[in-house]
């Protein structure tokens, strides 16, 4: 299936308005969806007989900075038996960003979503074990946000040197 067929198949099954827009410039080509539809769309993509995206390769968080005031979640899907790719993008507000967890569909989402939470402060709803994964639990702020300011001292160690 090529990208047009995948998009047409999703629209035919879940309704025309489920895909807000497509990004053919991206590689692999991407669809944009709303955050409240995420689990529904992903569940369909994983279980549908013709799509069967069985592997979730990568979850990326992204901060567009205070000017555009948005954050993004980007999911890279791959289907091992059919050898097709898809990128799914979700835009989130920068104030209190939150998104549903995909742990119920792919177990690999567990750690990758924890990493996004750790780096961007995007809250993951229904996550079984939402703790910081790479940074210390008592660290201030989320490092990969564009307006992140390091704390001056951590236990008497100067952070910026």
């Amino acid at each position, binding site marked *: 299936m090529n990208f047009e067929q995948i998009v047409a198949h999703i629209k035919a099954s879940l309704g025309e308005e489920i895909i807000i827009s497509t*990004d053919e*410039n*991206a*590689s*692999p080509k*991407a669809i944009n969806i709303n955050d409240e539809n995420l689990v529904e769309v992903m569940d369909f993509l994983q279980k549908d007989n013709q799509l069967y995206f*069985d*592997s*979730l*390769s*990568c979850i*990326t*968080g*992204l901060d567009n900075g205070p000017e555009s005031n948005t954050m993004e979640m*980007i999911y*890279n899907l791959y289907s*091992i038996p059919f*050898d097709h*790719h898809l*990128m799914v*993008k979700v835009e989130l507000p920068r104030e209190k960003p939150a998104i549903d967890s995909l742990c119920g569909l*792919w*177990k*690999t989402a*567990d*750690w*990758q979503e924890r*990493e996004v939470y750790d*780096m961007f402060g995007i809250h993951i709803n229904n996550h079984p074990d939402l*703790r*910081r*994964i*790479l*940074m*210390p*639990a*008592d*660290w201030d702020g989320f*490092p*990969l946000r564009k307006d992140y300011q390091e704390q001056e001292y951590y*236990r*008497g*160690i100067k952070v910026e040197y």
Partner: protein
Amino acid sequence: MANQVQYIFDQENLRKSAPQKFKSEDLKREEMIINIGPQHPSTHGVLRLEVLAKGEEVIEVVPHLGYLHRCFEKHAEKLPYNQIIPFVDRMDYLAAMNTEHAYAMGVERMLGIDKIIPKRVEYIRVLVAELNRLASHFIALGSYGMDIGAVTAFFWMTRDREHIVRLLEWASGARMLYNYIWVGGLFYDLPVGFEERCLEFTTYLKPKIKELERVVIDNKIFIDRTANVGVLPVDLAINYGITGPMLRGSGLKYDLRKVDGYSVYPEIDFDIPVGKGEAGTLGDCWDRTWVRVQECYESVKIIEQCLEKLTGEHKRTRDFDPRALAPKKIRPKAQDFYIRAENPKGETGFFFRADGRSDVPFRCKARGASFVNLSIINELAKGGLISDLIAVIGSIDIVLGEVDR
């Protein structure tokens, strides 16, 4: 400066920064919490495991990561594309060439120059990447043997890895962190005489791998320790995003070198070994190790074919400049891009967002194979013995530089 307080010690510090999942008050009868690492040789680096055990039996394993976290992704947002390559090296420091190859390939595809890279450059890239894959597997196999009591293999493997490291040092100037593969080319052409010495090395190496096979993986003690331990069914592996020798050990013939066919891999003849469950169950620790050993043979095969091309069809010429196509200014057009390639540990991916206006990526995310592969550890180790937990960690083959990035 010397008299300044450098660290304010408090007994509560560890509890605050890395809180334990289990509390000693909540333990049931005969249960105990065992802390393994972060400074423990069998955790292969600075990995800390909180193990809830009942006697010798593991009930749950909770990994605590981040001891080697340097926030590669934050650095990458400040640096031009070509200056990120040395940082990429430091992710999977045992297979820096492979990661560099994936990264350079991604940037080239974003720029649209991947089709015009000279064949000689591509063959050299594959050659050094496969040499590095051998070196990485040698460390994996050697230290795995040592984890479960076979010390000889580690000495043999470090001896043979030393030859590879010296070859790569000859080519690039560094032993482990090379910065050799550049966007659009290479740092230098291969040194004069490299091909001949490399061919001598492969002739030397083949019986040594056979020797390793006989002393480690056919060894009865080794089979007793690893067969039927940490069995990973293939559907669970895919659900956990496991890739590389771990997934192939579970019996799925899935290798990105064949699936995506990047670089010159489609022109090279090699097989993909998959686990068959010969010693115990399909997908156990022994199968994963066996796949790694077989991949060493395949890498040698690839190296020999590359050398044949590099001394024949694409041989060294006086006017060949491996940097000729390296762009002075790397400014891809605005796009989102995801590239993946087969590392010794599994699928290494890079996600880029280029804004089209600057030389630095707006966002560069690295998908570490070790990070994703490690997430299955609880699933593999629970219900087994603590000694099996050590066997499981070794068979996953993690590099903490890539787990924590």
